[in-house]
């Protein structure tokens, strides 16, 4: 379970998160929608402990992410994150890239790491790209590789930050299909997305972010069917 309580975060004078409350139960898929600059990416990087916070708390399975005593690298093993811009390691082949963290972080033996990595690469449809360097992959393939890389750590939670926003339109589908597959398999996920049809289809709940707070949260039917908050209405009429 991910429990976010009254989370506050500023960059200098700019207050980006102004008291976020959000609880994600195991097996749940929560999508976050909202305008650019509303703090969606910042929230995900805070959950993974990549950004420090200024107030409130984030607990993952009861462990406070930003507590001094928390072993953040250990905690991150349970929380995979995939970013908008794919971040392949250019000097490693697809297989080496996906194997790296299981080997070095989990200490898995080489042949076993190979097995795990191959399994996840096949899972996301990259079974035939194992030996190539990322420069030979399309954006969609690189993004699926990034998903496989995160999955190879066998995380309990996955965070997706607009993973299709930087892709050419014809590549969006393959990545969204991968996400849908994970959702069907019961992965607990927080997805920031601009793909409303996707959000509607996979989410248990949809959260609308506005100016650093969760302005409205509810079932996809409620948020997309009968949004209560005027800001939500404005945002949704804008993207349709």
């Amino acid at each position: 379970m991910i429990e976010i309580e009254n989370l506050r975060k500023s960059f200098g004078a700019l207050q980006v998160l102004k008291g976020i409350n959000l609880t994600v139960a195991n097996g749940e898929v929560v999508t976050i929608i909202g305008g650019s600059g509303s703090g969606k990416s910042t929230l995900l990087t805070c959950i993974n402990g990549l950004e420090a916070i200024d107030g409130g708390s984030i607990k993952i399975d009861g462990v406070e992410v930003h507590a001094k005593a928390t072993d953040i690298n250990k905690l991150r093993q349970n929380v995979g994150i995939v970013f908008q811009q794919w971040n392949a390691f250019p000097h490693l082949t697809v297989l080496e890239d996906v194997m790296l963290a299981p080997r070095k972080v989990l200490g898995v033996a080489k042949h076993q790491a190979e097995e795990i990595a191959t399994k996840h690469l096949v899972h996301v449809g990259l079974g035939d790209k194992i030996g190539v360097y990322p420069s030979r992959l399309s954006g969609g393939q690189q993004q699926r590789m990034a998903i496989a890389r995160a999955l190879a750590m066998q995380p309990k939670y996955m965070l997706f930050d607009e993973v299709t926003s930087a892709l050419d339109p014809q590549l969006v589908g393959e990545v969204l299909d991968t996400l849908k597959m994970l959702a069907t398999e019961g992965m607990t996920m927080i997805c920031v997305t601009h793909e409303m049809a996707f959000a509607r289809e996979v989410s248990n709940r949809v959260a609308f972010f506005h100016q650093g707070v969760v302005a409205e949260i509810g079932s996809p039917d409620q948020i997309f069917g009968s949004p209560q908050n005027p800001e939500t209405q404005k945002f949704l009429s804008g993207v349709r």
Partner: protein
Amino acid sequence: MFETALTLNDLWFLAKGAGMTLAVTAVSVAAGTAMGVIFGVIRAQFGPFWSAPLTFVLDIFRSVPLLIQLVLANAFQAIAKFGWEPFTTSCVVLSLYTAAYCTEIVRGGIDAVPVTTRRAARSLGLTWAQDMRYIVAPLATRVSLPAWIGLTLGVMKDSALVLWLGLTELLKSSQILVTRLQEPLFILLICGAIYFLISFPIARLGGYLERRWSPND
């Protein structure tokens, strides 16, 4: 058709000079690179403000002419009664000189690794050290290699200045032969050829590594 008084013995003498050049260069580049990597990581990690004192000291080594550094260091070690051999003094000065340049090369290489790439590595649970070792080091090395090869070749040529401390390296050996045999052009030609022979493999090695790595990028 070409008369020369140069004997096989003289050639051997030149070869020994080249050996000294190689020794000074090898020690200085090895030590200088090791220091440069450490300083470069410090500079990249702590930012310009906190590494300002380090940068300042290294700037001195980069801007004062090497010859002046050598002479001053030699005088200083004599006054301080270190009792250093000219070889030691030469290596210390050249190492610091190399380190000063290498620091900038390393810092540039580290800074060239995108923050987002490093973030992705850390997000997987890799520690700072693992990120440095498995992601930053290989990528930064690729970026830095051409400049580092250039630095090594430069240090090799600049190492000729240690003759002022009384070390008989390649250039000094040539000068001795020129004085004795009075055939300056021919001997300097040979001396230049030897410099080329030592430099060439290093330059080629750089080219080879660059080619080997480039198809992956």
